[in-house]
């Protein structure tokens, strides 16, 4: 597994363009997401893996470690943390296939054992770098409760024909390509994602204007509109990277 080289320094970038590290992280996060789906991981363990990865590279430098190895180890570690245990053999197989799409399955040779050893060693390293704080509060739980509350208030036909829940869930999952999880509170991210989903379909929360408190304020007291706008715009930014990367 070879890491792609980091691009030029900040000067080489155009305005508004994501930093090259961000691209790398995006690509690696994409790798984590894809591997997670192929390994049958649930949304929360995948989110934990991405968070661990992002957090690790906040503390360290891309040059020091191979990001893909870190990614594999984060998957392994996240499986343990979120009680969806994965076998290193499966992780190695899926990753190998990711990089060598038409390759044969790995043989049980010394190279295999070396790979396995590296994953395990890396896991310990990551734990130490993160000071063993690898359990996070994710927005998923909050988002689901908000969805239930909102569902009761909306007209049921309107709810049925508008895939608000699916869209919100998709947006939340995709948000892990970037480091949103590290910069914002879980509740805020959940509300913002829901907000965006409602916006996309033009759904209006009934009696919003007449209410004393807007619905998003209800869900999180310390949330403000600017925060929501920030999160939404960051999220959309992440999506722009998607089209640029092959």
């Amino acid at each position, binding site marked *: 597994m070879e890491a792609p080289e980091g691009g030029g320094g900040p000067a080489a970038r155009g305005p508004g363009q994501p930093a090259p590290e961000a691209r790398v992280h995006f690509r690696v996060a994409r790798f984590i997401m894809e591997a997670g789906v*192929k*390994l049958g991981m649930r949304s929360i363990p995948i989110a934990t893996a991405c968070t661990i990865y992002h957090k690790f590279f906040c503390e360290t430098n891309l040059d020091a470690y191979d990001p893909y190895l870190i990614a594999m180890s984060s998957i392994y570690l996240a499986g343990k943390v979120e009680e969806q245990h994965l076998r290193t053999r499966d992780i190695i197989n899926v990753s190998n296939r990711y990089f060598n799409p038409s390759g044969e*399955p790995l043989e049980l040779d010394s190279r295999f054992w070396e790979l396995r050893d590296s994953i395990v060693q890396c896991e310990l390293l990551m734990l130490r770098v993160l000071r063993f704080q690898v359990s996070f509060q994710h927005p998923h739980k909050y988002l689901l409760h908000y969805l239930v509350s909102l569902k009761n208030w909306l007209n049921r036909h309107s709810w049925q024909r508008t895939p608000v829940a699916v*869209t919100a869930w998709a947006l939340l999952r995709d948000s892990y390509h970037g480091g949103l999880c590290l910069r914002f509170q879980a509740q805020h991210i959940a509300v913002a994602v829901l907000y965006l989903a409602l916006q996309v379909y033009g759904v209006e929360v009934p009696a919003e204007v007449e209410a004393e408190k807007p619905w998003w304020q209800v869900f999180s007291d310390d949330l403000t509109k600017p925060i929501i706008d920030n999160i939404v715009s960051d999220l959309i930014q992440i999506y722009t990277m998607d089209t640029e990367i092959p």
Partner: protein
Amino acid sequence: MDRDLLRQSLNCHGSSLLSLLRSEQQDNPHFRSLLGSAAEPTRGPPPQQPLQGRKEKRVDNIEIQKFISKKADLLFALSWKSDAPATSETNEDSEDHYAVMPPLEQFMEIPSMDRRELFFRDIERGDIVIGRISSVREFGFFMVLICLGSGIMRDIAHLEITALCPLRDVPSHSNHGDPLSYYQTGDIIRAGIKDIDRYHEKLAVSLYSSSLPPHLSGIKLGVISSEELPLYYRRSVELNSNSLESYENIMQSSLGFVNPGVVEFLLEKLGIDESNPPSLMRGLQSKNFSEDDFASALRKKQSASWALKCVKIGVDYFKVGRHVDAMNEYNKALEIDKQNVEALVARGALYATKGSLNKAIEDFELALENCPTHRNARKYLCQTLVERGGQLEEEDKFLNAESYYKKALALDETFKDAEDALQKLHKYMQKSLELREKQAEKEEKQKTKKIETSAEKLRKLLKEEKRLKKKRRKSTSSSSSVSSADESVSSSSSSSSSGHKRHKKHKRNRSESSRSSRRHSSRASSSQIDQNRKDECYPVPANTSASFLNHKQEVEKLLGKQDRLQYEKTQIKEKDRCPLSSSSLEIPDDFGGRSEDPGDFYNSYRTQAGSSKTEKPYKSERHFSSRRNSSDSFCRNSEDKIYGYRRFEKDIEGRKEHYRRWEPGSVRHSTSPASSDYSWKSVEKYKKYTHSGSRDFSRHEQRYRLNTNQGEYEREDNYGEDIKTEVPEEDALSSKEHSESSVKKNLPQNLLNIFNQIAEFEKEKGNKSKN
């Protein structure tokens, strides 16, 4: 593409979105038509109020609009909607699954007027409402709604919405009186919405569960206690009393929030499918993922390849003779990949070489299951099966061996060895079968000789009995006596009856009853028979009329009830002789398989012709009578056995079905389980009939003898007792039966002769006894 959704979105965002959409999605065929028509509604001026709000959001909105336009093909796709349908609302939301929250509008502090308006907009028929009775009138009762029990969970307690439950929708709780008297003001009621007048804001509810949709029909309507109020309402009340609580606090303090399974539960509730997770990223669309890339598929392939390596090493060991090492390698391979075909085949071959053929066969079969086209597996399996068959043959387990050969042939029709072996086995088996049969015949002959002597004694005894019971007989039936040769002699039930006397009696009764039954209703005969039976302390079956003779089922019933007596009951009447004979022919055929069966089968008779003639008069009589009664006569049994045996030889293939059908009946016939066993055996293993058959014969005969001695029509199911009745009794019985049996018309010539003899014999006896 979902037009309505698109329209909704466009309405919200305005024309800028439309133009963006056009530019972004111009290549998408789905959108071209939609954008053309969907643009129509947005042309009109947007309503005033939203416009202002929108202007403020314009700046951010552009970004969002761009986003929408870029992802429109995903967002508005018809397949985007939840793939998994949300679980139907079972509103048994216990606290433990997730955090049940008070209604959102309560937090938002939406004014009552709006809440009311929205309530009447959103309420649907079939929703469950909970309220308190405010007044009871003669036409129904009014209730003030407190909360909702299904569908949307709203805060309506303070809205003072009333609903009427008309009288007709109130189920009555007692047989008389006013159903409304059960209800009082202040009762908390759970009801289903039946009718809504949205304009006038009127509701009609019902207490019948028919007003509810199917998935809710299990919920009880009517009076409920305050403990049954929904959780969300209780939380709502708490919130009212402490309006400073925040949503977040309530949620965090709820037990359901920390439930580890809350995410899965709610995902299911909302209809989001994790196995096919949604994403708006182009690269993560799950339809682009190939199944081969998934972890489980990769693991399988890898295991197979690893296992194959071990197998190769193992085969190398095997070739140089290191069997133990080879076995180790194979086992290793199978540990890695349990169903690996190559490993199984190789291990099977190793087992076969070492001699553990059964294990080898297991391995080969497993391998073939996984890969039916594996040539080697098939070949080796055939070889091993044949080898195993050979082993079994040497151990004299012929049927087993045969099955193995057949299996091998079934697998591979061209396998010469298997065919040869099978044929050889068949020949051998046939020979041994014939040998056995001959032996059995001999034994039978010997037995029958004995029987003859005891038969004479039995006859005498029976004669005496007949005289004694003449009166009874006469009164009971009008049918002629034995002389009529109606054999309906069910007394052939003699088979069942032990005592010779009884046998005769029964025969008489039977014939009488059979006749009467024919003439009168079957009941009459049955009553007669019943009487007779009772005399014998024999439980009387319900259908004792001889009409059963026409129906196999009845016979079976009769037979089932009483082993022997049934035979007696089944008297063959003259009238029914022909039909009977035809039917009974059937029966006999079926029974033929069973030694016990009244062996009065035509076949048996036919075979009889060839068999020992000396015994014939006796036996034929017995057979005849017993046959008639479709019951196993004791005497007959032995004969039957012989005949049946023969019959087996000849008609086994063809008759097997009959036998099977009659088995239940025959079981009953054979009053004793032993006899039934016997018949069973004979049916199933005619091949082995020879030895067992002969043995059974003797057993049966013994049993019968005992019965006759005892002179009771006991329903002895266990003939296991030591019986040493005399054969003559059986003979006597059988002779009676014979005389009674009538089957004359359809019998072949030799049989007819036999029957005539029997009839004469019986006539003598019958005349004597009657007179």
